[in-house]
């Protein structure tokens, strides 16, 4: 019982999510079908994977605005090297992940070595990545190979986006909880000076979180392209906001030092459920945005109200 309590207490907007699901299940019978829940999972996958990567950065007290653009660029390069340069499929996947890592590393180095605030460093890299995506694609979608499309398909009836999300989530949790590198992220985000005085390499940690974020973005890019069988120049446009929102809804603080993969996951699912639910309820496109805003505010408030009670 106590375990359940701490679990709920530590995991962000879980109560808000549960309440929302109950309301939707009552309001729209189509919501609680197995097929639709799988859809929600698939639709949450991209945001969740981007958000897992973003979790590293936010825990370290940074912010990564470039994740959407990096997802677009890395998947575009996978498509381009496959279609126009004849790279073998496996190699295009390597290219994709490498591009993510390199872009992350550049953001990280700008942040650590050039002392650019991460907001500015990643805003700059976002612009660079978007521009390069357009340059490479000439503004047109490029069809992707089977290797990429695999990430949008199913395997034994299970959608690969969901599997990928689970794998990346577990990976993120392992890194954050079990490795020294992960613990250093909490330390640097929680008190940079203390971390430095304890001999933790702050710069290395800063670069590392952005590299991880870039790699996770590249994987998210594969899922997006795999689902569309093509790399789109405007893919994942604005997704960074969803990713950051998922992390923050999940209980992390932009001030750093706090955050958990499970919370981020709840945040990403919450966002996907809201959008799926409003679609199913056929809320008009104009009102939809109003309702999305209200539901996000309400769902996260539920969590804060509950915590407020706890402290008294």
């Amino acid at each position, binding site marked *: 019982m106590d375990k359940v309590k701490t679990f709920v207490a530590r995991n962000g907007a879980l109560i808000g999510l549960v309440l929302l699901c109950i309301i939707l299940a009552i309001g*729209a019978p189509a919501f609680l079908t197995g097929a*639709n829940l799988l859809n929600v999972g698939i639709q949450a996958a991209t945001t969740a994977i981007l958000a897992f990567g973003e979790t590293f950065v936010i825990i370290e007290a940074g912010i990564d605005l470039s994740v959407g653009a990096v997802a677009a660029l890395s998947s575009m390069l996978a498509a381009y090297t496959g279609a126009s340069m004849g790279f073998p499929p496996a190699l295009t996947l390597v290219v994709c992940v490498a591009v993510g890592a390199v872009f992350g590393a550049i953001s990280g180095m700008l942040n650590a070595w050039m002392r650019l605030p991460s907001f500015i460093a990643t805003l700059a890299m976002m612009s660079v990545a978007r521009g390069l995506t357009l340059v490479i694609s000439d503004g047109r*979608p490029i069809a992707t190979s089977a290797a990429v499309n695999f990430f949008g398909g199913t395997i034994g009836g299970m959608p690969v986006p969901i599997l990928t999300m689970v794998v990346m989530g577990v990976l993120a949790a392992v890194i954050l909880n079990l490795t020294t590198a992960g613990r250093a992220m909490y330390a640097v985000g929680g008190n940079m000076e203390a971390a430095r005085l304890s001999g933790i390499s702050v710069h290395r940690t800063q670069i590392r979180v952005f590299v991880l974020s870039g790699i996770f973005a590249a994987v998210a890019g594969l899922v997006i392209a795999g689902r569309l069988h093509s790399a789109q120049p405007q893919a994942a446009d604005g997704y960074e906001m969803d990713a950051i929102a998922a992390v923050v809804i999940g209980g992390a603080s932009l001030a750093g030092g706090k955050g958990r993969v499970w919370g981020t996951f709840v945040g990403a699912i919450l966002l996907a459920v809201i959008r799926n639910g409003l*679609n199913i309820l*056929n809320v008009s*496109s104009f009102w939809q945005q109003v309702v999305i805003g209200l539901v996000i505010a309400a769902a996260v408030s539920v969590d804060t109200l509950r915590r407020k009670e706890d402290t008294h």
Partner: protein
Amino acid sequence: GGGTQSSSSADKVVLLVSTLNNPFFVDLRDGAQEEATKQGVDLVVSDAQNDSATQQNQAQNAVSQGAKAVIINPVDSDAAAPAVQTLMPSNLPVISVDRAVTGVDVTSHIASDNVAGGKQAAEELAKAIGDQGDILILEGTPGAASTRDRGQGFKDEIAKHSGIRIAAEQTANFDRAEALDVTTNLMQSNPNVVGIYAENDEMGLGAVQALGNGAGNGVTVFGFDGTADGLKAVADGQMVGTIAQQPRLLGQKAVEAAVKAIKGEVVEQTQSIEVETVTADNVKEFQ
């Protein structure tokens, strides 16, 4: 043939395009570029990234850039008016392309008719589903002129077909990935749907993807634009049809008009580029 001698070696023409994040406008730009190369003028492209204010900034900057003529593809027809007015004092020829500039006498306007396109799409989709059943509309970016016109043309026509019911209309922002999710979701709550009207090909292709993922077979998708991917989908039988605009031709004609105006020749006030209904029968002609 570059036989025509232009007034000076490299006159500069600025093309203010609403966005290049979309193959349609990339084609438009390519058509313009080809024509510019042919005519020996220097084409400078400014991408407003779908923001009217940015477009106005770029219009102002065109003068500093030394433009001899400006081609504008407005982000929004109304908002383009003051932008174009800032060019008036310098007496530059202004050509609008694809979307008009409200209330301003531009040198020439070159466009296809989106309301007519919507109507044609409705007629063709109705035919394809046998005048019977539920349909979905995937709307473009809320508030965009093309969204309004294509929606209006389509709905006015569908209203005449009593057997057809619009079960749901939701935006997917002209975006393929969004259309994939939105269609998947809508098929959950509207399993009886037999047809989908997508206000551009990108969204149509997203819908095709969603249906291919097992949501339902026998659902007819109709697009708009006639992009390369869109035409391919029609040829492959994934989309039943699309409304072909001719973006390259739009771009070509715009540059042609700009060069004429620079030389002081007479330019037609409006040039209408036809939109054509493309189906499996005639798709070869467009590819």
